């Protein structure tokens, strides 16, 4: 609007374009009578999944907590008898979460996943704080096959050294053979 008449024309054109919308349909979805379609990748309520063997996937690496822009994930690492890691507690404060999905991207084990569920209103804010028992589901979520401990070299109760993906049998350092 620097004073040129051409600019004025563009304003008029805009008004005309808008006016044409008098005859187009509203995009609004009448939730809750009408449920919107949410794609599987929709970023809603967060869950912790299990690996294909039914074990908790989360290894308490803390990466999700570190990447979370609002710092709403807190957990503490604990160790199982076989030396594998798991979270002693895992807490998400959904009253802070902005559903950005960064935690899911950071997670090296596909444990933490966002789901197409956004209906999580509460009258009491305290109920927005989810602990591990509220987060952990009995399934693999979006990634059916991945099992971190099958890939990583750490020894577990069911997998000896050298049995992970692409691993050779352990070396005997006392052997003189090449």
């Amino acid at each position, binding site marked *: 609007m620097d004073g040129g008449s051409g600019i004025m024309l563009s304003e008029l054109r*805009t008004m005309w374009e808008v*006016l044409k919308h008098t005859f187009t349909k509203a*995009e*609004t979805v009448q939730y809750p009578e009408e449920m919107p379609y949410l794609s599987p990748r929709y970023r809603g309520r967060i869950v912790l999944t299990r690996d294909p063997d039914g074990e908790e996937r989360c290894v308490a690496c803390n990466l999700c907590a570190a990447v979370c822009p609002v710092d709403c994930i807190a957990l503490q690492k604990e160790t199982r008898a076989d030396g594998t890691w798991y979270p002693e507690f895992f807490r998400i404060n959904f009253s802070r979460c902005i559903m950005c999905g960064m935690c899911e991207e950071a997670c090296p084990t596909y444990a933490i996943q966002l789901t197409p569920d956004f209906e999580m209103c509460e009258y009491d804010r305290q109920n927005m704080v989810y602990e591990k028992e509220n987060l952990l589901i009995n399934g693999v979520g979006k990634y059916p096959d991945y099992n971190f401990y099958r890939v990583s070299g750490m020894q577990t109760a069911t997998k000896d050294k050298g049995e992970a993906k692409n691993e050779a049998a352990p070396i005997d350092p006392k052997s003189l053979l090449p």
Partner: protein
Amino acid sequence: MSELIPVLLALIILIGGVIVAAVLTWFERRLLGVWQDRYGPNRLGPLGIGQVLADMIKLLFKDDWVPPFADKVVFIFAPTAIVVAMMMGFAVVPFAPGMMIIDVNIGLLFFLGMTSLAVYSVLLGGLASNNKYALLGGLRSAAQMVSYEVFMGLSLMGVVMMSGSFSLVAIVEAQTDLWFCFSQILGLIVFVIAGIAESHRLPFDLPEAEHELTAGFHTEYGGMKFAMFMLGEYLGLMLISCMIVTLFFGGWHGPALIGHWLPPLFWFGFKVFFVICFFVLLRAAIPRPRYDQLMSLGWKVMLPITLINLVITGAVLLWMEGAG
């Protein structure tokens, strides 16, 4: 008996004005929805009209709070000023033949006076809030209104010259044959733009520009005091629309040939409705300019146009007089 008519009319306008303003808040939102491919308020009552009531109840029940740092008296006075000024403006509007509160021979000047009073409301509100955003908003509105006041007044001079009177009834009557929107097209454009600026509606809502100034001059206002500002704004919208119809679109006159089929009041209301829709369309379509753009538009475009309009109108009138 006939003395009672203006009094009755005044009452009707007072109450009707408030009601229409309230309905306008809903209507505007619905209309914006239509143009923006959504619904707008549609949950309460038929077509969501109940929203008006809900909003009113909400505003009424809000805490009537005055910030401790504000200038209390001025702070409370400011929102009333705009409502009063706008209401007063309606006194001279000729809705239909004989249907006006008072027909003064300087009706037009009275209208201009009342609209310029409204600036005090915004200015004082901004000043009394004792808040930087409010102050900035107030300052903007002062500069904006004072500037556009000039073109607004000047743009009407063509109309005055052509009708030869400041009386609004006379002006309407002067349009029996030809509405001024044709002969005074330049005046119309300037008046419409200045009118938007005067009522600081979008896209010229710079005094409250929420992206920059939180909420500008009414940052600190809430509850009924805020509602008064809103009421003032919608009354202003109605008043300007009425004036545009009166001054440029033949007031109560219907279009030629079919004009007499329906009563004058209908034609007046019908035209006002369209002008209001046009204002809403502006809001739906045009983004807010920068403040300096607004000012340069005023002084570098509007002012020359009005002056040219004046000169041409004068010349044509003189020529016609000479010829006639």
